[in-house]
């Protein structure tokens, strides 16, 4: 079975201009050879810290940005080759929900007409008329019929996000790209929206690409996970495996850095990363994580040299995944 969405070696470099004595260099490698797939009706979680390229990946998939190289296929069709009429058809099948519902809704457009907009843009008249379809969508996301003529400022953050979801659902898409859909919401409301997204998936069979930085939300929500760092995927696999037995040192560090809402939790195994993310304009050669890697410094020189060579393709982007787990266990128990 071919997956619904298949991404192979996707790359996006933003050019940087040289200014005065500062050399331009090779540009910023926002996304650098990323591959993953999403099956119909499934959820892929894309996680990583800010600047790792997860939002750029989402935009590339929507063709809001043109990729530098690589391929994105929906049902086997290469999207870079789509012409404008086919692109419109593509956008009917792939929709997006944005992080900030306040800035992704037009403040002067009523909620009803915002939800109807995709139908009008695609010149689709559903059976029973546009208005009835919009009412149905509003009902599905938990908005009341009398909200139809209200404006975004009259709604709370959670309700606005419901409008964004209703709008994405209007065209019955096969895939919705959710870019941090709940990170602007409070915890109690966040859970409402996550449950709503799950209900929609169960009822319609839509697939999600769920971009987020909150690991506990992704763990709850995703079937499969890709962990990104500096434009590359560090670890890729089924959610229970990645969270239960993470193999890449970065995944392990990321998971152990999440504050646990339990004062009695055992924190002795915590891995502390030093320093900040390197600049994506000048990432380390070879393994991009080596400058902060807790394993790198403990390797014998011969193995350490391997880190400056390009990482072989695979689900775990680490030269030393075989010894990493053991090494981290011995350092943290000291």
């Amino acid at each position, binding site marked *: 079975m071919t997956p619904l969405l298949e991404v192979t070696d996707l790359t996006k470099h933003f050019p940087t201009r040289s200014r005065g004595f500062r050399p331009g260099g090779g540009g910023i490698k926002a996304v650098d050879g990323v591959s993953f797939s999403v099956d119909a009706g499934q959820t892929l979680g894309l996680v990583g810290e800010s600047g790792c390229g997860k939002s750029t990946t989402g935009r590339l998939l929507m063709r809001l940005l043109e990729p530098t190289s690589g391929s994105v296929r929906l049902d086997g069709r290469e999207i870079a080759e789509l012409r404008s009429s086919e692109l419109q058809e593509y956008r009917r099948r792939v929709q997006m929900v944005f992080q900030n519902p306040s800035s992704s809704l037009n403040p002067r457009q009523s909620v009803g007409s915002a939800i109807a907009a995709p139908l009008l843009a695609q010149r689709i008249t559903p059976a029973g008329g546009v208005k009835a379809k919009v009412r149905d969508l509003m009902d599905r996301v938990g908005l009341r019929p009398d909200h139809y003529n209200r404006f975004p400022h009259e709604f709370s953050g959670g309700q606005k996000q419901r409008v964004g979801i209703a709008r994405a659902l209007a065209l019955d898409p096969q895939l919705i790209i959710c870019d941090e859909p709940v990170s602007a919401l409070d915890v109690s409301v966040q859970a409402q929206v996550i449950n709503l997204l799950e209900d929609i998936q169960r009822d319609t069979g839509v697939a999600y690409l769920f971009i987020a930085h909150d690991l*506990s939300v992704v763990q709850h929500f995703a079937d499969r996970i890709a962990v990104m760092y500096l434009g590359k995927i560090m670890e890729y696999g089924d959610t229970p495996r990645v969270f239960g037995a993470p193999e890449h040192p970065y995944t392990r560090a990321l998971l152990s850095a*999440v504050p646990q*809402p339990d004062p009695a939790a055992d924190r002795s195994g915590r891995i502390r990363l030093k320093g900040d993310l390197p600049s994506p304009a000048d990432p380390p050669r070879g393994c991009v994580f080596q400058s902060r890697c807790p394993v790198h410094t403990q390797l014998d020189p011969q193995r350490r040299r391997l880190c400056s060579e390009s990482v072989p393709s695979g689900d775990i982007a680490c030269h030393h995944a075989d010894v990493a787990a053991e090494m981290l266990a011995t350092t943290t128990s000291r």
Partner: protein
Amino acid sequence: MTTPEAAAPMLAIRDLRVSFPTDDGVVHAVNGMDLTLARGETVGIVGESGSGKTVTSQALMGLLKDTAAEVTGQILLDGQDLNTLTETRMRAYRGKKIAMIFQDPLSAMHPFYPVGAQIAEAYRVHNDVSKKAAAQVAVDMLGRVGIPDPKRRCAAYPHEFSGGMRQRAMIAMALVCEPELLIADEPTTALDVTVQAQILDLLNELQDETGTSVILVTHDLGVVAEVCHQVVVMYGGECVEQATVAKLFEDPRHPYTQGLLASMPSLAQRSERLNPIPGFPPSLLALPNGCLFADRCPKTHLVPDDACGTRRPTLTGLDGHPSRCHLETLQPTGEVAR
């Protein structure tokens, strides 16, 4: 475990209320906030947006003086009521006795001055020293918060720092006069998890070194569990529950706290379905007469005579773990069906 009362509280807030007149009516942002804090302790103030946690910290810093806001109640720092001080006299306290760090350090620092100069300035306001000596203090301070090569970094501007380093510089600026109380308003919310862990470690270390008391304002219960001793849960501008960290997570009393803990997805165990709190927080323009949480609360049927809808509960409870809920007064043993 020492109770805050026993250790002669360094800070005591009594019935703090803050309201803002607006075109739409009076916004009651804080409606009766009580808090005691012992020296060297860390208290977390948790709540969702609009629960009044930031306004509370602004009132503590005296940032609402000379504004339209009406602040009543007492803020006793070592016995001195800060709320009665004039703006001029408050200046002697700000930075020296109470300091604050903000969520977004980029907007809290002056973009045109080097970081070192800003730290030195904060020091010179309260200490009569030469510019040169203050500059040296700034270098030492940057070193203490873990910035490599502090001497060179002092000459850098805020935009040249990364998010985590900027927050370190903010902490250096806040602690340079060795204040007794540090208010940290969402200090790690804008940071990535790996950097957040670094900053929380740093705050813990510095507190051990200096014995400063810390008020940590956050919406993240995970952060609270990591660094706080005491917790105050706020909802609709009220303190709804106060407890030690261990007690709050082990035995949450207020239905809102219980709902908050249940609604969080957990890394430790994967649940099939999340349990959100239905509905939305109340409007601070028109507060209901009864309990502010009543229309979202799953336990109102346990209280007779519709007390939840008509009477505002008070903060009651035993053994230093009060909760603002009618259920507490019904069965003082606390053994109600939770």
